[in-house]
């Protein structure tokens, strides 16, 4: 049994604050990152869950929630490309929701092809819900937002003053902004305010290419659509760009970095103080071994082994708590995304924090004068 482990086990209460602070810093970081990714995921949920791999937007669009209307007939142009097999439109317009009991909520009305295999139909709705929208004046809303909208299956509501009926509740299709209300393209057009020019407009034109590599088709179509300018994206690009925009331009990313950094600093300070306290409490013993002639480096190894253990145990605790937090979030329909790379990063940062704390605490050992035992 090494001195480091024996002391850890015997005086675990002393080490607990350090361990907890490492774990806490890790959980703080992971949950924040998870919420952030979850939140950004909601920005692009309709892109990520759709069957399309090419998206056409208005030229100034940087994020999914920013696109302005474009002509719906661009789809016909897209279909001329030999790689493109299908194209569709997706309409996303702001609308006014009014539930049966008079609650008013601003929503985003999403119009799509009411078919199970529609490109625009997001994955969790493909089983049944999209097809159900073929019935005129029907809508689907997300389970996680149903309370807010006072929506119940079968119950009536109003969108922009037109009566609609809720025919289903989707799962995992929450929005970062206004709640999504899904309807067929036909229904959505009827519920929207008509365009001033009478031109057939939509928000996005989607397409699917023959194989899984739409980059070639994108380049061709982009050069074709230079004037009038539209932006052609692969689904992946569009999703990444939207999330990146939210991360960098919205200030949310900076907030995350700041609070994570704060958590790490607090974790390091508490852990190093914990280790320092342990060293100070056994300073005479360490001094005795310095007197015997054991080099300070060998005693430092004891402290560093302890910090490593704190890091490892703290990381394990981080992972356990994060998994529990994830389960809780799923149960509450809170979009939280826990990725393996985020967990790995948190574990490594936890270990790093603990080791830095150990190194900071070593000062006490190197300051030690064994002759002071003889005072």
């Amino acid at each position: 049994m090494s001195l480091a482990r024996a002391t850890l086990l015997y005086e675990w209460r002393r080490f607990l604050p350090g361990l907890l602070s490492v774990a806490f810093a890790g959980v703080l970081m992971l949950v924040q990152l998870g919420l952030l990714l979850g939140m950004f995921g909601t920005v692009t949920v309709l892109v990520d869950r759709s069957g399309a791999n090419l998206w056409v937007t208005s030229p100034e669009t940087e994020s999914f929630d920013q696109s302005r209307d474009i002509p719906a007939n661009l789809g016909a142009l897209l279909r001329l490309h030999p790689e493109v097999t299908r194209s569709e439109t997706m309409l996303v317009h702001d609308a006014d929701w009014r539930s049966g009991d008079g609650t008013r909520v601003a929503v985003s009305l999403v119009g799509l092809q009411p078919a199970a295999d529609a490109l625009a139909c997001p994955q969790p709705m493909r089983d049944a819900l999209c097809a159900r929208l073929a019935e005129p004046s029907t809508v689907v809303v997300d389970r996680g937002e149903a309370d807010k909208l006072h929506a119940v299956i079968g119950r009536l509501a109003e969108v922009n003053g037109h009566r609609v009926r809720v025919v289903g509740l989707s799962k995992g299709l929450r929005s970062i902004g206004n709640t999504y209300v899904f309807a067929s393209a036909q229904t959505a057009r009827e519920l929207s305010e008509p365009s001033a020019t009478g031109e057939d407009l939509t928000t996005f034109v989607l397409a699917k290419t023959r194989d899984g590599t739409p980059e070639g088709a994108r380049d061709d179509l982009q050069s074709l659509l230079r004037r009038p300018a539209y932006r052609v994206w692969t689904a992946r690009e569009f999703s990444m760009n939207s999330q990146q925009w939210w991360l960098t331009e919205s200030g949310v990313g900076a907030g995350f970095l700041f609070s994570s950094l704060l958590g790490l600093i607090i974790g390091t300070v508490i852990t190093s103080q914990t280790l320092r306290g342990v060293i100070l409490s056994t300073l005479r013993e360490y001094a005795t071994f310095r007197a015997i002639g054991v080099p300070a480096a060998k005693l430092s190894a004891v402290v560093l082994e302890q910090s490593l253990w704190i890091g490892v145990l703290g990381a394990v605790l981080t992972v356990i708590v994060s998994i529990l937090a994830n389960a809780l979030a799923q149960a509450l329909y809170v979009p939280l995304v826990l990725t393996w790379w985020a967990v790995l990063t948190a574990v490594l940062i936890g270990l790093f924090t603990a080791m830095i704390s150990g190194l900071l605490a070593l000062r006490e050992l190197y300051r030690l004068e064994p002759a002071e035992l003889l005072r």
Partner: protein
Amino acid sequence: MNRSDAIAPSISASGLVHGYGKGAARTPVLHQLSLQFWPGELSLMMGASGSGKSTLLAVLSGLLRPESGSVNLLDTPIWNLTERELERFRFQHCGYVFQNFNLFPALTATEQVALPLHFAGVRETQARQRAEAALDEVGLSGRMGLRPAQLSGGEKQRVAIARALIGSPKVLFADEPTSALDSANSEIVIALLQKIAKTHGATVITVTHDPRLTGHAERIIRLQDGMVIEDSRPNGTDGAALSLAAGTAATGTQHSTGNHP
């Protein structure tokens, strides 16, 4: 000095000067002290607090570099060694026992004693065997699995002595080893230190202000204001005390002679 004729001293210090503080605030602690110690003997260094006995022990044991003077420990001028060499020298030849035992709370008696070997890279099983033998020697064979919290003061000090013995040191330095103990335990501990001096042929130097210990010492050195005022052998050759004391003082400076009683 019959003794020095027969056996060479294991420790020989000369012209030790040390003080704390600087300039006008300097408090001198050791005044041109010269002393010799021989193997197989337990020497008690006694004196009031501030007499310089602990500082002397620190200088003799290689823990505190004196301002001037030299210490030859086992024929090695230790204060000419580098810090690293001195560490290695202490590790190979010196044992230390302190007033407060200084045992790690988390370790069992066996683990405490084996720890120096652990740092020396000795294999676990071998370290354990040697630790058990050392604990047996100090009479703790029945207490090997206990932690400091489960041991009495006397037992703790014996564990500390076993730990000091584990490297088979030629010299053993003890600082007030009995001051935290009752008389019965003090008796056990000092008798043990004396026995170690005999059986291991070790040089044992014990700093104490405890008069109960004098019966167990081959030699008693009394210090006052950083000078030796008495150097006697209570059970040894008669007249040795005075001649030794005089001899020690003669190698010192004028004022050490002046302070001689």
